[in-house]
């Protein structure tokens, strides 16, 4: 059991790290959103699943409810994170942030 939890924790931190490196390295706003939107959601999901599982290792009625609450946060993040990404993309489009493009002579 502890091994599964440790594995999930390490995976979650790995994906959070990838998201952060992507946030720093990628060239423009839109591609940064890719790193922020996907890797962060997955990392948070893995970490929260690990915490919920660890919380169950001394099962009682209260701890089961707390685990369900953690899963409620996960559901919420699954709904909220793409919506926030979408809102940011739309705002950037309307404000006029130019995307990075491959230089092939014709650059708009």
């Amino acid at each position, binding site marked *: 059991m502890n091994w599964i939890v440790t594995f999930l924790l390490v995976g979650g931190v790995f994906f959070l790290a990838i998201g952060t490196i992507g946030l720093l390295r990628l060239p423009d706003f839109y591609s940064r959103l890719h790193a922020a939107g996907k890797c962060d959601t997955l990392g948070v999901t893995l970490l929260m699943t690990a915490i919920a599982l660890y919380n169950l290792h001394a099962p009682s009625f209260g701890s089961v409810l707390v685990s369900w609450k953690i899963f409620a946060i996960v559901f919420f993040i699954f709904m909220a994170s793409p919506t926030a990404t979408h809102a940011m993309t739309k705002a950037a489009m309307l404000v006029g942030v130019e*995307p990075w493009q491959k230089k092939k002579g014709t650059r708009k």
Partner: protein
Amino acid sequence: MKAKFAAFVIMLIFWVILSGMFDAFHLTLGVISCLLVAHFSGKMLFEGLRVEVRARQILGMLAYGPWLLWEIVLSSLQVTYIVLHPQMLDKMDPQLIRFKTKLKSTFARVTFSQSITLTPGTITVSVHDDEMTVYALTRSAADSLPGEMEKRIARALEPEQT
């Protein structure tokens, strides 16, 4: 009326998960709170749909969830590959594409667009009737749309139309 009752039941389940206290004082106030929320915002959960339709959609979502989770893992690995690649800029070819979706209901369209945002290298920019504008990180990601995901969502959320 039916919508409010269904909302009340959902709210009561959520309250039990939140509260974890079952003495008379808290339980009474919980029921009162659930009634208040169901009365004022219960309609919002169903947006004019019949309760049965929404219930079937939620069940469809549960069936669709695990596959989506696996796709998210794959997409994160793909983003990992691009982020950690030393010549990252050669791997990228960002582009905006537009395509028409076959999905009819609003809920299915929204689910589809959220799934697109969560999976390989694509972000939904806007949904305008049946036209979806998508920003893709690589050419292969752009070519793969709408793909299998649309069929799965249609099977899960709109059984009568497939």
